């Protein structure tokens, strides 16, 4: 049989161990995260300084990064420029490939709503880049702790060797750290160079939605390899 209920219990035990290990190492991981984001910001020529410390979980604190937004009062044409691009994209809406249309629509909606907010309600969005960084750290930390459990529920029920399961789990968690670093650095650099107009887009589309995408991507690759492995066992299970 390709599925074993007993493997799920094994998986839950692995998830608990992985979470304990993660919890123990989180301060170091977050420190490394901040350091690498700082390095990437320097590469992108974004000045930054160490910000406040926040407590994410009991005994787990993270140091935030303080950067700045592009000042729209100094560069008043920037929001109009982005709005113009959004309108142009909307004008060409019917020629976009159908599966991309909703993504495009959400992107434009996000830019337009933020533009209107900045013009009509307040010259600034309610969060500083440092606040954004805090929101990001909090979300990613919870996700990292959830990740082993999510993955073992889906993958550890398979009758494939334990090393195979563990390898995929390690790969997924490592990728999660790396991808979080890249996205946060990209978001802060975008805010610095292009302003706060882009914040909701990063918050909504490159936040949890992007997290979910790579989780599914890893799951699909792992299932593909597992199916190939099980196929070689020449079992008939239907």
């Amino acid at each position: 049989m390709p599925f074993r209920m007993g493997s799920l219990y094994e998986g839950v035990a692995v998830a608990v161990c992985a979470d304990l290990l993660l919890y123990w190492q989180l301060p170091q991981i977050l420190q490394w995260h901040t350091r690498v984001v700082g390095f990437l910001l320097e590469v992108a020529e974004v000045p930054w300084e160490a910000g406040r410390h926040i407590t994410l979980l009991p005994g787990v604190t993270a140091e935030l990064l303080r950067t700045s937004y592009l000042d729209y009062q100094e560069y008043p044409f920037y929001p109009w420029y982005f709005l113009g691009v959004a309108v142009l994209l909307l004008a060409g809406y019917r020629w976009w490939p159908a599966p991309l249309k909703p993504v495009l629509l959400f992107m434009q909606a996000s830019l337009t709503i933020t533009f209107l907010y900045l013009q009509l309600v307040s010259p600034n969005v309610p969060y500083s880049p440092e606040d954004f960084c805090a929101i990001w750290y909090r979300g990613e930390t919870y996700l990292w702790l959830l990740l082993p459990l999510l993955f073992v529920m889906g993958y550890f029920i398979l009758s494939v060797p334990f090393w195979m399961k563990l390898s995929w789990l390690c790969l997924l968690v490592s990728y999660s750290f790396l991808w979080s670093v890249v996205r946060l650095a990209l978001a802060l650099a975008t805010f610095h160079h292009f302003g706060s107009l882009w914040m909701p887009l990063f918050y909504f589309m490159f936040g949890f939605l992007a997290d979910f995408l790579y989780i599914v991507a890893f799951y699909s690759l792992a299932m593909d390899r597992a199916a190939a492995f099980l196929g070689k066992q020449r079992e008939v299970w239907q």
Partner: protein
Amino acid sequence: MILLVAKVTAVAVVFVLSVYSLRHFFFAFHRLFRPQRMNYTDLAGFHLPSVTVLIPMHNEEAVAHDVLEALLEADYPHAPGRLEIIPIDDHSTDGTGEILDEYAARYSWIKPLHQREGRRGKSAALQAATRLATGEILIVFDADYIPGKSLLKFLAAPFADPEVGAVMGRVVPENTASSLLSRLLDLERAGGYQINQQARNNLGLIAQYGGTVGGVRREALEAVGGWNVLSLTEDTDLTLQLAIRGWKVAYVNRAECYEEVPVTWEVRRRQIERWAIGHTECLRRYLWPLLRSPHLSRKAKLDGVLLLGVYLTAPLVLLGWAACLLLFFSGQSFLPALAAFFLASTCYNAVGNFASFFEIGNSVILDGAHHRVRLLPLNIANFLFSTVTVSLALAKYYGGRILGLRPPWHKTERYRNGNGNGHASGNGNGGSSGNGYPNGRGLNFIRARSIIPGSPAS
């Protein structure tokens, strides 16, 4: 006040989507680890009631040959009174009628019905044909389907159980290589049938009769008043009516039949628009009778409600996002609620309407076909597309109801034999039709792959 409403909305949406997510996980675990319910396949070939096959056709000259040829090869006894085939030419303007007459001249058990007047649409066509049918069991195929040699036996077998009112087989796309969309739909179908339908069957819940590759007992059909000609989804309508009156719908995973799935997003849009509206009409019509039915258990009622409400999740997702946006700009947005919302909504919906990624992944293992699962992350496109399309369709539906308009029925376009735009051009000589769909696929293609055991090419 507005912020409070936004918070309550976000939490409510999270809750509803979480229920759907849990339902999918439960189905998958049940399918994988619990005993499978007897699905009558052992009776195939031993219970042979009189069967009438109904095939509604509207401008189907591109595919009519294939389905009729495949049925001629069926190993169901062709003795008089045992099997009859009624292809219904439903107001066709192409050569469908002539093709059917050609077959009728050669085979006495093929009795075409030419509908030239009266109501159009699949359910009206089925209603008219049912009046002529003599079979105790009515088996329905869409014109683009290619039944395997033993399929009729598998579909007829469950009717040995007098409580079974309808039977549903498994739909397998045969044009998966045509486009990214058809590959994504192949994944969705695999999860939806291999895991979801089978689990519902195992659990004694309401397995869904899908309107094709399925059969209905004539007595049961008459008991519920026949096909609902006003419904855009007569299959869901019939499923609900049968379940409410205590008839069982059996799902037979082994009864596989090959279909054409939409190749272009525009065709897909029209298809899910029709499904969404038809399903929502059923929700309005049958929610209360379902909850009051004395024949259904509590868990079946709960599942029935979730089944009927599945298309409402699309506007719910948009509503949830709107609420989150409001909270974000008010400075109130904070993580627990939003995180839960995004995880729940994407987990449930990111890979299509009827199957979560977990169901699809496991169906791939069960089917032993693994390469296709690599496309799973791309189903995000399908998710976003469906969310927007279904929401717009429901807005159109409710708007139409206010104005007293009936939603139109759209026929799904066929691609086989070069028919890429709903217009027949099929020469069947090979090559490409210009839409990426190779000519001459269909029955010959399946025969070449020996999918129909015992067919001349195998």
